């Protein structure tokens, strides 16, 4: 519980129960007693079986709903509602079809009330950095899945959050596009020294992109293992994939996920 002072996002003994679907049924416990802390500039991946409450954890970090027990802290403040320090990104790109790409990237800035010229300049810069330069005035349906997800990343970065919460952002993409986007993301996170919590089902992705990997058990989800990825090249997943110890980490994680499985079946 004694977390480092420079923790950017912190979950303190968080439990989340959802009201039962039918009357008289037991409430569903999504996650139980999760404590974790992510330091400034650190990228942490969260893996675990489907339905183990990973997304619930993220939604509470974003302030979309409150924990049943425990607290979530971001940048020294307790999270009680959505706040501009945290931005999230999902598997779905969630681009608004009636807005051009540049207008989609500006969405968060516009909601937060920044002035039109300032937000246009910032989105232009992000557009270039996310390799979408020629597509400012295109509409989402004119773009490929990979480009749309790039635009979603640009929209997330546009509000300059301290913490990025990402829920399987690349899982709907084909393998090649995915690798390119992982590299882009890793570079952006490193350049801007962003803190990120990254949910994925892809064990290789989790090792390639993060400083630490947290493994969750089946529902009710809790963290059963923490693995520090002490490999170089966190800003360059292509380089990291070549590393000799890469396979060793992935093998270890595969084994761990099986342990989580057995615990549930006892």
């Amino acid at each position, binding site marked *: 519980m004694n977390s480092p002072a420079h923790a950017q996002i912190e979950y303190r003994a968080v439990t989340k129960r959802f009201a039962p679907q039918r009357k008289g049924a037991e409430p569903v416990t999504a996650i139980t007693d999760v404590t974790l802390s992510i330091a400034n500039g650190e990228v942490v991946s969260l893996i675990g079986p489907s339905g183990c409450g990973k997304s619930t954890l993220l*939604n509470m970090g974003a302030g979309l709903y409150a924990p049943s027990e425990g607290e979530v802290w971001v940048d020294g403040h307790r999270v009680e509602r959505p706040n501009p320090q945290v931005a999230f990104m999902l598997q779905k790109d969630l681009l608004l079809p009636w807005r051009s790409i540049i207008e989609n990237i500006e969405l*968060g800035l516009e909601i937060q009330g920044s002035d039109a010229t300032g937000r246009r300049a910032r989105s232009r810069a992000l557009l270039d950095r996310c390799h979408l330069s020629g597509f400012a005035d295109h509409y989402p349906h004119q773009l490929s899945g990979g480009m749309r997800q790039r635009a979603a990343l640009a929209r997330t970065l546009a509000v300059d959050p301290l913490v990025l919460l990402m829920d399987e952002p690349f899982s709907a993409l084909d393998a090649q596009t995915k690798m390119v986007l992982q590299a882009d993301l890793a570079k952006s996170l490193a350049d801007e020294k962003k803190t990120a919590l990254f949910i994925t089902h892809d064990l290789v992705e989790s090792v390639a992109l993060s400083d630490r990997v947290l493994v969750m058990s089946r529902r009710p989800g809790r963290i059963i293992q923490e693995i520090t990825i002490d490999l170089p090249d966190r800003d360059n997943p292509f380089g990291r994939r070549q590393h000799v110890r890469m396979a060793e980490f992935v093998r270890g994680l595969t084994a761990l996920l099986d342990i989580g499985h057995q615990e549930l079946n006892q």
Partner: protein
Amino acid sequence: MSPPPLIDPATPKRTENRPIAADGQITQGVVIASASVLIAFLAAWEWLPGLLHIPEFILPPASRVWQEFLRAQHDEGLWLHTGITSIEVIVGFVLGSLLGLAIGCALGVSPKSELVLSPYLLALQIAPKVAFAPLFVMWLGFTVYPKILVAILIVFFPVMVNVLSAIRTVDPDLINLARTFSASRWQIFRMIEYPSTMSPLFSGLRIASTLAVIGVVVGELVGGNKGLGYLLTYGEGQGNTALVMVSIIMLTLIGIVAYGAVAMIERKVLHYLPRAQLKTS
């Protein structure tokens, strides 16, 4: 020497000599075939009644209806009646659509009020709207207002239902995305929910544009001395079948223009959608 390109750019692509309208494309062949149907229809209308000895007061030939159209312009004030009916259609359609949009949005953002009002709205929707026409004439007299009122009533429902269900079916993740940017309730409505209604709104407006004509005509049939619906009953009273047909054709033209106008505005407003989703058929 460079190798020859795999596909000679001069060779026409396979798609260009597809059979006529294989996937709904409008080709020259389709236009010709469509025009032939019209010509065949007009020819049958012109000569079949004579060949089958159908008297003119039952089914006047096309040329007779055309003469009646020319006569009615001078003698019956056809354009005045057409103008009045058009204005009633436009006013009824615009007011009914705005009301449908407003109520649809209000119920959309407030599920409670929808629950409270839904049985009454359903009852009103089931009630045959044109049956209200005599009642409105009794209330408002032989003026344009009862006609407009019937049009409003009949236009309101398809628009409201489409807008309401559009707001109900907005992806909750989109709302959550806006919420993570700390959007206010009003911002969520203005930036997410309201724009989401546009595509279904226009589907509703297309239906409504044709319904508006029905509403106005029924109002005019019931009472009054102006408008194409009146001209229709007047022609009936005179035993002037050709005048009845002229009125029906003019009403159809008003409907076509109204529908076309909605489709045109739709293409402008929904310019961000792929073309395929905007097919009018």
